[in-house]
């Protein structure tokens, strides 16, 4: 049971990265359906960054490995997010179409890049799995002696705590700061924000890029922390599935980063549930895997029926903004 809960949190963290990234993007009025692809790109970038360092240094330092992986994950994801931002903000392309194209590209790119570039580095797969277990899986030394509580809450790698810190900071930013207020105004009513002297384009670009970079960490987290650095052939397709669920999770958590922490752990638990229940048939496993999607649909129905304005998506989500159209 405690192993199950620990794994649920570990898996939930991947959702949390994707969910926070998408929430920040959506708060600027952009529905980024490219998140699954961007998470894949993050995984590819992270493996590449870590792989280059590990294969070129004799005695790799754990901290540097993790840092480089994070930087490259953010860079790759950010680049793909930048393409999305340029197409939807500057060229005002349809956000749904652009997002889907980004996802299709990102998934294929990551699969190709990991197999043809990262894994061709000398000894890469051995070194990556070593780093995955020793560096990304390094948990806090003091608290692992705390029994069950320690196993559930403190036996996680650095990325898990990073995710929670990012989520809390995002929640504070949205609720308490001027930047948060401005960002919400941009997503709700860009014309109002523009008239109030807020640089709408800048806000959109910044938060699409930041959101993409954060989501990219989710991909990295899956490969290096959850999978322990074992880069298999199904990495891309699994991350893509996680990416779609992350977008659903944004709806489930009502665009609130603090709720996202709880929501992502719940989704993590539901996602791996079928692995920890014994004696279920193949069909039952598939049915269990459906649960997160069904929960999302139910939440969507409930919030729509109740119709509370705060729980609705940002009012101009998915719409391009033309200043001339007053």
């Amino acid at each position, binding site marked *: 049971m405690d192993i199950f809960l620990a794994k649920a949190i570990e898996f939930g963290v991947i959702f949390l990265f994707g969910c926070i990234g998408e929430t920040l993007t959506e708060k600027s009025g952009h529905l980024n359906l490219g998140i699954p692809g961007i998470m894949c790109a993050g995984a590819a970038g992270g493996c590449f960054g870590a792989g280059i360092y590990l294969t070129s240094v004799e005695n790799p330092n754990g901290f540097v490995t993790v840092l480089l992986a994070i930087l490259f994950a953010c860079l790759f994801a950010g680049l793909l997010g930048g393409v999305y931002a340029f197409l939807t903000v500057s060229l005002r392309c349809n956000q749904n179409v652009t997002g889907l194209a980004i996802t299709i590209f990102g998934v294929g790119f990551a699969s190709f890049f990991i197999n043809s570039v990262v894994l061709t580095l000398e000894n890469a797969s051995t070194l990556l799995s070593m780093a995955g277990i020793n560096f990304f899986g390094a948990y806090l030394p003091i608290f692992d002696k705390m029994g069950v509580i320690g196993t559930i809450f403190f036996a996680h790698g650095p990325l898990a705590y990073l995710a929670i810190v990012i989520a809390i900071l995002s929640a504070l930013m949205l609720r*308490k*700061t*001027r930047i948060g*207020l*401005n960002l*919400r*105004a941009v997503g*709700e*009513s860009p*014309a*109002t*924000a523009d*008239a*109030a*002297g*807020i640089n709408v384009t800048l806000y959109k670009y910044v938060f699409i890029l930041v959101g993409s970079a954060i989501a990219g960490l989710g991909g990295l987290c899956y490969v290096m922390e959850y999978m322990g650095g074992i880069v298999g052939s199904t990495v891309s397709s699994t991350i893509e599935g996680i990416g779609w669920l992350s977008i659903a999770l944004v709806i489930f958590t009502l665009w609130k980063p603090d709720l996202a922490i709880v929501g992502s752990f719940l989704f993590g638990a539901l996602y791996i549930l079928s692995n920890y229940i014994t004696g279920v048939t193949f069909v039952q496993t598939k049915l269990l895997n459906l649960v997160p999607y069904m929960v999302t649909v139910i939440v969507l129905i409930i919030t729509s029926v109740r119709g509370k*304005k*705060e729980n*609705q998506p940002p*009012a101009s989500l998915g719409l391009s903004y033309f200043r001339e159209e*007053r």
Partner: protein
Amino acid sequence: MNQEIALELKHISKYFGSVVANKDVSLTVRKGEILSLLGENGSGKTTLMNMISGIYFPDEGQIFVNGKEIVIRSPLDAFHYGIGMVHQHFKLVDVFTAAQNIVLGVKDKKRFNLKEVNERVMEISNRYGFHIDPKKKIYDMSVSEKQTVEIVKVLYRGADLLILDEPTAVLTPQETEKLFAVLRKMKEDGKAIIIITHKLHEVLSVSDRVAVLRKGEYIGSVVTAETNEAELTEMMVGKRIELNIDRPDPVDSRLKLNVEHLTCKNKEGVTTLDDVSFKAYSGEILGIAGISGAGQKELLEAIAGLEYAYPGSTVTYVTQEGEEEELIGLSPKEIRDMGVALSFVPEDRLGMGLVGSMDMADNMMLKSYTKGKTPFVERKDPTSLAVKIMNELEVVTPGIHTPVSRLSGGNVQKVLVGREIAASPQVLMVAYPVRGLDINSSYLIYSLLNEQKQKGVSVIFVGEDLDVLIALCDRIMVLASGKITGIVDGRTATKEGIGLLMTKNEAMRQEDKNES
């Protein structure tokens, strides 16, 4: 009165393409005074004020604030010079509180603290006598409360010159009185206020001076205490201009449409058409005049079956054979098939009636897709109709397969009106068919309408330009706030007479209020 000049405009002009929005406008506003900017629709009031508030940039002329020449390039610049504008359409974020909306975009060095903002909002409210709850969400607010938020927003940024664009258009008479009381307090505080309006009695009750615009030109300023409604009306509508539009005598005058007790309400439950009754005859053009939003759109849409008419309303249509048919309750398509056509040119021209991304032929098909015998759509007839319209109305387009959104405004309107005429209707309703057109295209549309009239069609023409209405129409019906204030003969009507009728209901409303 403080005689210091707060804002001075010198020889301001603004052009949109070949259209003149403002030409050589010069005016001044003093500190501690309320200036009314008066003018008909399209006289350039809002454009002029948008140039002061940084939304448009003037093509010619100079702006002085407190005696110094300034350049205003953005709303932020305007705030910087203490100019704040309250737009007709509020710019507020629905899910924010009043205070959050007010502080949005304000740049100061202090730490962001909503509590302090709330306190300052209360302070401003108490000073001028507003009633506002800084923590209330915008979506819970009435229109008048939202307007209050907009005004406080401008004051919070330290504006000394306030521009209000038709602030009373959305208010009840009681709310209007409250607003005026607040404005008078601000005036005592030394603020300069410009209020855009076309309601004469409000001008007389609140302002110190009146500046009048007509067709983009500055006509003059008068001191409110030394003027009266008649003088202002004349300044606003001007002397009659001869247009030389043909007006053949009505032919074969038979009752076509009998509208009785037509009443409509909008989504908020406000009456938009109030017990309207009139008759339209074949072979004549019935003009409809009124300030924008006086119920013209609702009237046409109710007849066409697009707007719900309240019980008690009847619209009786007399067919060619003399049979009477009740239109209310029928679907728009049934009404159209009986020979009642509507062509409405909205402000953005493409919004109603045509699909911008489709070509001329496909747009023709929108009205005929149910015809034809095979399961596939019939393309031949719409295509030949499109060719016919293109040739007969001289539509300038690379071909009938070019998307209509690529056509110029005038050509789009020709397509729209041409399609309605092609259905050979018995009653043809057109709204603003010459909106934004150059003179030649306008005359072409007028002659098209006259042609229909001579064929015995009953034409109902909603127009903006009084000169055109007087020159073209046989009878002119004037609407004001959803009521008919008069039906006059086009041959003997005067602009002053119609102008007074257009604003008459406001005065009536005031009297009603005093009685009750």
